[in-house]
C-alpha cells in the first residue's frame, strides 16, 4: 500500500480575482454544500439536525454561524457552510428527506462593493434593489447563460453559487460587467 496522499481541494478558478473602483470579484475557496429536499412533515426534524431553521418563504434564507440555508423551492434548499459539511449532520437522520453532498458540484464567487448589484444585473434579470432583494435574500436565477444561486450576504456583498464548469464563464461575465460599471460610474 502506497502512502495515502494529502490532497488539497482545487478551486476551478484558482486564485482569480478582479478589482475596480466600487467592485471586487473574488473566487471563494472551499466551502461545503448540501442539496436538500424535505417533506413538509419533516422540516422541523431536519432543521433541528442542521441547527438552522429551514426558511419556508420564497427568496429567503436563514443563517446560523457559518451555515446558511437558502430556500430554492417549496421542498428544496441549498445549505452552504464555510467550515463544516452539513451532510455530516444528516447522515443518520430518520426523516423523509434527500440530502446530497454537492460541495464540489458548486463553487462560489463573491461580488462586493457599492456597484455589486449593478454588476450582477449585467446578466441577472432580477430586481436587486435592497427593498426587493434585501440582505439575506436568495434566489436560483440566471447570470447570462449560466444558472446561479444568488445570496445577498450584506447590503454590498453577494455570494454567487454556480456549477464548477460554469465558473470561468460566470467569473468572466462578472469581470467584464465590473469593468463597465466601474467606468460608467465615474463618467
Amino acid at each position, binding site marked *: *500500500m*502506497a502512502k*495515502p*496522499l*494529502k*490532497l*488539497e*481541494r*482545487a*478551486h*476551478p478558478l484558482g486564485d482569480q480575482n478582479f478589482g475596480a473602483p466600487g467592485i471586487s470579484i473574488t473566487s471563494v475557496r472551499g466551502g461545503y454544500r448540501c*442539496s436538500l*429536499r424535505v*417533506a413538509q412533515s419533516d422540516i422541523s426534524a431536519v432543521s433541528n439536525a442542521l441547527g438552522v431553521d429551514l426558511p419556508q418563504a420564497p427568496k429567503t434564507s436563514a443563517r446560523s454561524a457559518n451555515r446558511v440555508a437558502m430556500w430554492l423551492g417549496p*421542498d428544496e434548499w441549498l445549505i452552504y457552510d464555510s467550515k463544516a459539511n452539513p451532510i455530516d449532520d444528516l447522515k443518520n437522520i430518520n426523516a*423523509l428527506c*434527500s*440530502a*446530497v*453532498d*454537492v*460541495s*464540489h*458540484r*458548486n463553487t462560489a464567487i463573491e461580488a462586493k462593493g457599492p456597484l455589486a448589484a*449593478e454588476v450582477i*444585473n*449585467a*446578466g*441577472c*434579470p*432580477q*430586481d436587486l*434593489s435592497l427593498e*426587493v432583494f434585501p440582505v439575506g435574500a436568495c434566489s436560483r436565477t440566471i447570470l*447570462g*447563460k*449560466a444558472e446561479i444561486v444568488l445570496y445577498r450576504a450584506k447590503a454590498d456583498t453577494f455570494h454567487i453559487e454556480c*456549477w*464548477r*464548469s*460554469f465558473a*470561468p*464563464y460566470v467569473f*468572466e*461575465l462578472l469581470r*467584464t*460587467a465590473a*469593468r*463597465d*460599471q*466601474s*467606468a*460608467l460610474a465615474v*463618467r
Partner: protein
Amino acid sequence: MNAPVSIQPNRIPGKGRLSAADPLRFTFDGKTLPALKGDTVASALIANDIHLVGRSFKYHRPRGIVSAGSEEPNALLGIQRDVARHTPNIRATVQEVYDGLEATSQNRWPSLKYDIGEINDIASPLLSAGFYYKTFMWPRKAWDKVYEPFIRKAAGLGKAPVHKDPDHYSSQHEHCDVLILGGGIAGLSAALAAAKNGARVIICDEQATFGGALHFDSDVTVDGMDGFSWAQKVTAELAAMDNARVLLRTTAFGYYAQNYVALIERVTEHLSAPRADLPRERLWEVRAKKVIIATGSIERHMVFANNDRPGILLASAARTYLNHYGVGVGKNVGVYTANDSAYAAAFDLKEAGINIPAIVDVRDNPNEELLAKASALGIRVLTGHGVMAAGGKLRVSSMSVAPVNGGANEVIAVDSIIMSGGWTPSVHMFSQSRGKVTYDADKSRFVPGVYAQDCVSIGACNGTDNLSATIDEAIAAGEDAARAVRHNAKQSATAINATGGEAWEGTLIGAAPGAEAGKVVKAFVDFQNDVTAKDIRLAVQEGFHSIEHVKRFTTNGMATDQGKLSNMHGLAIAAEALGKDLPEVGLTTFRAPYTPVTFGALVSHSKGTLFEPTRKTPMHDSEVAIGAVFEDVGSWKRAWYYPKTGEDMHAAVNRECKTARTNVGMFDASTLGKIEVVGPDAAEFLNLIYTNPFLKLGVGKLRYGIMCREDGFIYDDGVVARIAEDRFHVTTTTGGAPRVLNMMEDYLQTEFPHMKVWLTSTSEQWAVIAVQGPKSRDIVSPFVEGIDLSTEALPHMSMAEGTICGVPTRLMRMSFTGEMGFEINVPADYGRAVWDTLYQAVEEAGGCAYGTEAMHVLRAEKGYIIVGQDTDGTVTPYDAGLGWAVGKKKTDFVGIRGLKRPDLVAEGRRQLVGLKSVDGRSVLEEGAQIVDDPNQPMPMKMIGWVSSSYWSGNAQKPIAMALIEDGFNLMGKKLYVPMANEVIEVEVCKAVFVDEEGGRLHG
C-alpha cells in the same frame, strides 16, 4: 481649433443656446468646417449653409436635411472616428458633433454634386413601384450574373465597416415602478409627480438634453421661466433624487410583454476622445410596473412636386435650428403649410431677421390672430394656395405657387422652404406594446385606443394638444402610477404653471394640391425609400388593396425611419385610391426597433469567451499538459486523443486502443451525466423509468439500464449503482444529462407524484476516471483504502465506497471497453490530483491515457451502443439487440405500451448488426446507405445505414455497426455499400469483434 464663428454664414449671433466660446471642428466629405459644442452634424452643416448632404436610395436624387430629430429620413451620413470605427447611415440630426468628427455623404459617385447614378432619376419610369418583383423574374439564367449583382449593388445604403469592431458594449437589467418614455414637458411633469410620491422612476429621452418640443417652442413659459430652462431645472432636480434615474441620449426602442422595455444609451458617441474603458453603448433591459408614454408627436411634410429638394424642411425643425442651435435655415425662407405651427416658425425666423417672402397656406380660413400677426410682421400670406412645385436641384431656388382651385402660377424665389402638414402623434411605443390605436376623424390622426399593458399615454402622443391639459394629464399619470405602486408613501402634490403653447390647428394627409391623381410629378411620400404618391396609387391600381400589401409592394415606410413621416400620407393616398375611409384601410403595426440599434449593443457581452459557456472537466489542464487534442461535445471540451510526437490521429488512436486492451489505459469520464435518486420509493421509481428491473438490484451492485420514451424508442442509457436501499447513483450520456433529469422530473411530477423520491444532479460533484485494461487493478489498488478490489469481493458490475489517494470515492467495477476496469468517482475538487497520481502510475506501467475516439473504437469492438449514434429516435431496445434489458415480468415502465405497437413488433424492422468489409481494408463511411443489390436501377432500395465505423487495430480490420432491415436474420449475408467511386461489399455479422465470450471483463 479656434475657427471664427463668423465664417458660419447661417449662425445668427444672439440666437440659440450654444456658446460661441465652445468652438469645434469637423469634416464633411473631407472639408473642414467649424461648429459649436452642442451642435448636431445637421445643425452644424446648416450653419455652414450646407443642405445637400446625400443622394437618395433609388433615384440618386440630391437630398438635404428634413428634420431636427430621430425621424430624419434623408440626412444619412457615414460617421468615422478612425478606420475601424466607421458607421454608415447615421442621422445627421441625431449625431452630435465632437471635435475631429469625420462625416461623409453616401450613395454618390464620383461626388455629391455630380452623381452618375442620377441616371436612375431620368430612367425612373423603369423603377416604379414593384420594379424588383416585375423585372427580376426571368430568364432564370440571368439571376446569378445580372440580377443578383445588380440588386446587391442597389440594396442598402452606405458602406459597412470592414474591420472588427474595436468597441465594447454593456448591458444591464433594471427595474422600476414607473418608466417614462420621453423627456418633454409631459414626461418631465409626470416624472416629477411620480418621484415626489415615492416611486422608483426612470425617465429617458433620445436627445442630448431634455425638453422635447421646448427645444423649439419659444412661446412657452413654465413656472416663470422659459420652457427649456424649466426642463433643465427639473432634470437636475430628478437627477438629485435617490429614487429617480435620468437617462439622456437614451432611446426606448422596443416595448415587449409585461412592460419589458429595451433602451439603448449612447455613452461615447458624442465624445471627441472617449476613455477606452467606457462602453460605446449600454443596453438597458427595464422591467417597469407602470410605463408612461410621453413620446410627443412628429410634424409631417407636405407631399408636393419636388418636395425633396435640399433646403426644404419641416417648420418645427427650422424653429429648432433657430431657437436651440442659433442657426437660420436660409436667408429667404418660403413657408408651405396646412397647420398653424408653420406660422410660429415663420414669425420666429422673421423676428431673427430672415426674410419670409410668403406663407402659402392650403386652408382658406386660417386662424385670424395668426393672420393678424403675419400682417403686423409684414409677411405675405397666400391662403387657399398650394406650392405646385419646388424649383432648383441641388438646392431649392423657388416655389411655384397657385390657388388650390386653379389659377395662374406665381414663382417666388426662395433659398429654403419650411413646411407643415400637421402633426402625427408618436404612437410607435404604444403600438409596440400591442395597444390598438383608434382614429380621431376630426383631426385625421390615430391616437391610443385600447391598451394591452399597464401603461398610459400622455401629451401629444395621446392627442392632447393643449399645454395646460398636457401638464394636468402628466401630473395625474405620474401621481396615479406612483400611488398604485406605493400605497403607503407620503403623498405630495405637484403644481406646474405654464403659459403659451397654443394648440395648433390644421392638417393635411395625402397628396397636396398639384400632386393629385393623374399628375405626373415626383411628390415624395417616403424620402428614404424614394416612394412617391404616384407609386402608391400604382400599387392600388395593380390590385394591392391591403395596406400591408401596399406597404410591401411600394416599400413605403419600410426604411430605417419606419415611415415616421410617410405612414399617414401613404395611408391617405391608398385610402383615396381605394375609395375607402382611412380607418377602414388601417394602420400598419409598428415594430421594434423604434430607431436603428447597433448589433454590438444587442450582442453586448455575449461575444468571444462569453458567447457561450465552455465547460471543462477538473482534469482539463492536466490533459492539456500531456498533449491532448480536444473535441467539442455539447458545451464540453473533451480529450479526443493524446498524440505522441510524430503521431497522427490514426496512429494515436490505434496505440491507445491497443494499450487499453493489452496493458492499461485511463480515460476522463467526468462529463457523464449523474443523478442521485434518493427516497424510500427510489427503486420503484427507477423500475418505472428504465426498461430493466431494478427492485431487486442489491446495494453495492450496478446495472446497465435503458430508458425509453413513451413511444418505446430508446431515449438514453447508462449504468445505475445502488448506494443504499433508498439511494441510487444514476449515470447518463454526456449529452443526455439535462434532458434525462428533465424527463425524470417530468414523470415524477406529473405521472408519479405519489412517489417519495427526489432527484439531484450530481454531474459536476464527481470527477470520473476510468482505468481499463488487464493491469487496471494493479494500478488502482495501491492508492485505495477500505475497498477489497478482488474479483470475489468486487466483481464486474459492483461498487464500493472507500478512499483513493486519501479522498472519498465511489469506486465502480465496470467497463465500457470490454476489459476489466474501474470507474473511480471522486469529489471534483480532487479530480485533477487523483488523475495526476494515477497517470504517473499508468505511465510507469507502460499504459497511457486514451481519448473519446479510442473510447468509441473500444466500445464498438464490443458492440456497445452509443445512444444518438447507433440510435436515431426510431430504435427500440429490441432493434438494438438489447431485448435482454427489457424486464419480461414487468407490468409497467415508460414505453411499455409503445413497445407493443404493431409496427414495433412487426418483422423486418431495422436492427443493429455488425458489418465486416469483405476486402478486409475498407473503412466504411458513417451514414453510408446499404443495399441488397448494387446493380438494381436507381433509385435503389436502401435497406439500412452504417451507424458506427472504425479501423480496429485490435481486430486488425475495419469494424462497423449498422441498422439493417431484418438484420438479425441476415448473418453471413453479403450486402453492398455504394459510394461515389466504388461499391464496397460487406458481410453481416454479430456486432462483437473482440473477445466474443466476454471473459476479459472479469479479469
